[in-house]
């Protein structure tokens, strides 16, 4: 069971702040494949992965990072703070 979080326009497109996912995905890439099948909104949100960043357990990670031991995966657009 993984908590999946969405921020900014990913949150808005998917219409959820977070969802709990039962998954065997070994990597972020595999998780994204699964998420795309959940709804058209998910498919749209993840249609261009160059616009998506990911954090695993609150640490920035690569899109092909391993999910071994991961409890929380967050997806969001490039950050624009400061």
């Amino acid at each position: 069971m993984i908590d999946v979080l969405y921020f900014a326009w990913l949150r808005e497109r998917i219409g959820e702040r977070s969802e709990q996912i039962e998954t065997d995905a070994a990597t972020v890439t595999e998780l994204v494949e699964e998420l795309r099948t959940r709804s058209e909104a998910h498919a749209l949100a993840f249609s261009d992965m160059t616009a998506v960043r990911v954090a695993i357990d609150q640490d920035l990670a690569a899109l092909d990072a391993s999910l071994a031991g991961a409890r929380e995966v967050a997806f969001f657009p490039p950050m624009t703070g400061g």
Partner: protein
Amino acid sequence: MTVSIQSSPFDMGAEVRRFANSVSGAGAIVTFSGLVRDDGGKLTAMEIEHYPAMTERAVEAIRVEAMERWALLGAVIVHRYGRLEPGEQIMMVATAARHRADAFAAAEFLMDYLKSRAPFWKKEIGPDGEQWVAARDDDEEALARW
């Protein structure tokens, strides 16, 4: 507090004074503050979203990296989230060092990293609707110089 993530406004003058009093031996203090620009009425408000479980840790990691890379006597970061009006302060950093080169470089480094590596997202709300601020290519390129 060396890192503060807050929705409430802050008093830049008071923060600067407190920071200056908190460091000893400094010859140079640099501050940066970012404000919501009033783009000639095109902006009604700025909404800043963040990732609460991650934000403070990510910002502190950037602060620690600056402390390690430059001869700093101190560094503080305040960053707000929530709804902000034009003219309001979004955030500030302050750095203190014996010499000005370290204080300037570290402040610029902190800004470049906060822009692209801290989990904040800005949305501009105007009379004609709202839109997420796009990341700028040159913000990402700015990281390459460090």
